[in-house]
């Protein structure tokens, strides 16, 4: 499973979304995720992939998160 697919799966599970409605370019604000939702998503992603991910101001979209995780791998 790719990083994007893993993120989409976690988001769909935690926010009760249809995975087909999620796109990489979507911002967290568009997905109605607040700062703690993003922290929870990152935490679950770290557990799933075993990769530490630092949260910073540059993290605004799913694509940003995919890039951060893939760089950390």
């Amino acid at each position, binding site marked *: 499973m790719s990083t994007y697919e893993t993120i989409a799966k976690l988001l769909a599970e935690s926010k009760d979304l249809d995975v087909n409605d999620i796109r990489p370019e979507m911002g967290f604000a568009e997905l109605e995720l*607040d*700062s*703690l939702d*993003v*922290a*929870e998503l*990152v*935490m679950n992603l*770290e557990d799933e992939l075993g990769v530490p991910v630092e*949260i910073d101001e540059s993290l605004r979209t799913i694509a940003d998160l995919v890039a951060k995780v893939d760089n950390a791998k």
Partner: protein
Amino acid sequence: MKIRSFGHALPAQEISNNKISEIMDTSDEWIQSHTGISSRYILSGDETISALGAQAAQMALDRAGLSVSDVDYILCSTTCGEMIFPSTACLIQRKLGASCPAVDVNAGCTGFLYALDMADAMLARGHMKHVLVIAAEQITRLADWTDRATSVLFGDAAGAALCEPGDGLKAVHLTAAGNADVLYATMDGGNCPYTEPKQKAVPLQMAGQEIFKYAVTQSSKDIHHVLAKGGAKASAVDHFVLHQANRRILDAARTRLKQPAEKFPMNIETHGNTGSAGIPVLLSEMMGDGRLQAGDTLVLSAFGAGLTSGAALLQFNI
């Protein structure tokens, strides 16, 4: 060691989210959805945290049928004591009319668990019969009231536990990971002419997302660790009493522990985050309304500035 009784005290002044929204750009809806808090108690200028600490201690003594002269030692967990010195423990000792040794413990919001562990060690020496563990917090005075994201979280309170020899405490697990970057406050540099440049006081600063991650992952780890150390299963625990920091943290930690919501008592909605006082205040309220009974199995878990964290497995009043 066992805990025989709890006591607590709250300031008279209750401040609702609506009241706060009169002085800063926030709303009841925002605060409730982000924190689970609807109101909190804040010390007025006429009240002191040591007076609340003494009231909480007296309640614990009364519930145990003991008097101040029975107390052999006072430990007081406080993140922001009433004064730089003397210690808040000594101020409480004076108000109680006690004559035993008294000292403060600062392990941030984990302080109550650190102090419980110290009380266990003191009682194990065999020279003492009763140790008062108090947590007295006035974090609203450390908070940055120009920061709407953090100031609304906090409330003031004091809780107390009367500890005595026994077998109630089954296991304690404590951690510390020196980190002054994500949760801190500093004092000013004083007026020493040889200290230049002078440091200005910085009110409470918190990296919310980092603390959220730390809190949820560390609490889960600590709880699993203390259950394993004490040879207990999560299903056998009656109450998981977690640091009342933020409803969202409590919910995320509970989801990871896969235990039913009714095992996770809370008072964050009406009290806010009262630092290390949150756990003993909640347990005292549960003792008062009958939710906490002798023999109940408890897991306590907290995290805070340090960064520190800890968990304890115990049976109440056994």
